[in-house]
């Protein structure tokens, strides 16, 4: 039986600010700027937005959107507190809302002052999802995702022989893609040698294995597919979308298998809903908080077997022109960190054939993931409508 949500919703508008290191704007201002661009991109009026899912915590809340955009009748206000899995999971919530008629046009948005405002080690301690880490792990010297996720990466290396060379390949290819984009924080080429020489953050993660602390805003609009067909841009429909939560969701330390991400559950559901599999994917935008996180998600998504993520990314396979171009915009590693909403924007542009120098030829079907908190996962499979 075809899933009730398949092809019922579409990404109708996308928008983003400049990605920078340094801004005088507030997180809310960045979020509103990106939102207005996304609304314009869809060919909508701000008054037609009747649902909002702002990134939380940090940035605006529904009240701010009503007050600033003059929304006359908001019918849906949600938070999806899943860290880096939030944005793609929010697409599921938005699709449910527009498919059932609860809302017509749902705005998902992020505004972040990760460089000019509070840094990651301070920011995350305020998340309720990080309460256990704050109580049991911060006092012994583990504060940041770079530290908490490093132990899983180390285990993958010990069990499967994954190496820093594999990590470097993800960083270098992602940078090559960023340079083609234009709106990126990191616009100079990166070599494998420079990756290996960069300072150690938390072994095995070096500086260039870690995503950026940057400032910027991003937004997308989800509309009912039948309505989006009549809007400004080529129709990009949501074929499959899902979220998944791993065992021991608030503590990686206590998870029986450290390499079990919520994406294990989400991937199966997302593929089943779409009626598609890894072989159908032309381009993949993979949540890249760390280089290792990309390798492991490629395994979970079925592009290769568990333990083979390292060799899989080599030899140009994930570069433009390769078998599976990954993070064609430069990702969180090189473009900017807006919690992966930039990945959704890039996939939409790829499928609209608006990706400029980074365009994957004839891209029809693509996939985007989210990964967040202590391993929550989300997946959306989008298709360019015929």
């Amino acid at each position, binding site marked *: 039986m075809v899933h009730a949500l398949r092809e019922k919703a579409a990404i109708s508008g996308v928008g983003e600010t400049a990605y920078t290191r340094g801004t005088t704007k507030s997180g809310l201002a960045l979020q509103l700027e990106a939102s207005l661009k996304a609304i314009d991109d869809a060919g909508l009026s701000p008054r037609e937005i009747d649902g909002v899912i702002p990134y939380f915590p940090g940035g605006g809340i529904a009240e701010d959107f009503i007050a600033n955009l003059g929304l006359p009748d908001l019918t849906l206000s949600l938070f999806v507190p899943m860290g880096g899995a939030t944005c793609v999971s929010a697409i599921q919530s938005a699709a449910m809302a527009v498919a059932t008629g609860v809302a017509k046009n749902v705005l998902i948005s992020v505004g972040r002052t990760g460089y000019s405002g509070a840094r990651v*080690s301070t920011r995350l301690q305020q998340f309720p999802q990080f309460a256990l880490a704050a109580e049991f792990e911060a*006092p012994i*010297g583990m504060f940041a995702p770079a530290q908490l996720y490093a132990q899983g990466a180390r285990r993958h290396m010990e069990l499967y022989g994954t190496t820093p060379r594999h990590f470097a390949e993800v960083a270098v290819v992602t940078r090559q893609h960023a340079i083609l984009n234009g709106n990126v924080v990191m616009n100079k080429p990166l070599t494998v040698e420079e990756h290996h020489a960069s300072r150690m*953050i938390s*072994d095995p993660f070096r500086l260039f294995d870690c995503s950026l602390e940057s400032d910027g805003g991003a937004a997308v609009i989800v509309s009912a597919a039948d309505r989006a067909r009549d809007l400004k841009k080529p129709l990009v429909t949501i074929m499959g979308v899902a979220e998944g939560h791993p065992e021991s969701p608030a503590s990686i330390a*206590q998870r029986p298998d*450290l390499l079990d991400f919520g994406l294990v559950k989400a991937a199966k559901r997302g593929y089943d809903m779409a009626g598609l599999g890894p072989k159908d994917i032309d381009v993949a935008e993979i949540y890249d908080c760390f280089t290792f996180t990309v390798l492991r998600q490629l395994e979970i998504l079925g592009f290769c077997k568990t333990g083979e993520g390292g060799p899989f990314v080599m030899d140009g396979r994930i570069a433009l022109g390769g078998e599976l171009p990954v993070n064609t915009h430069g990702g969180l590693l090189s473009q900017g960190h807006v919690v992966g909403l930039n990945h959704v924007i890039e996939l939409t542009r790829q499928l609209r054939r608006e990706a400029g120098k980074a365009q994957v030829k004839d891209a029809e079907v693509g996939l985007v993931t989210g990964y967040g908190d202590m391993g929550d996962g989300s997946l959306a499979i989008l298709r360019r409508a015929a």
Partner: protein
Amino acid sequence: MSTTPAQPERPLPTPTRDSQPYWDGMREGRFMLQHCAACGKVRHYPRPACPHCHSMESKWEAAPLGGKIHTWTVCHHPFNFFFKQAAPYIVALVDMEAGVRVNAPLRGIAEKDLEIGARVRLAFEPVTKDVTLPYFVAG
């Protein structure tokens, strides 16, 4: 209470009603773990309900201090001023004999000698009058 502005503050745990017995145990030099009073299964970190049988009754028992390294990281960037002097420091995630894991600094073992399965032993470091934190030594 006196303040010491020159010295960055150590991040300390804020015990909850659920976790207080664990921290009381640490202070007394014992590794206390929460067990379901109905089905007997151990759980860590502490929480109100047993995920196996959903009983909300639990009891606390002292657990053995031995374990084996599951994985590790070496923290070079401190992320917190207090840990700046200690960096780089090894944090080992250890499979404890009782069937739970503990994440804590590992002292007295060189980075090159780290391996999955190596035996370690939990030790106790009082850091304030009220708070004692765990660390590991070769064992």
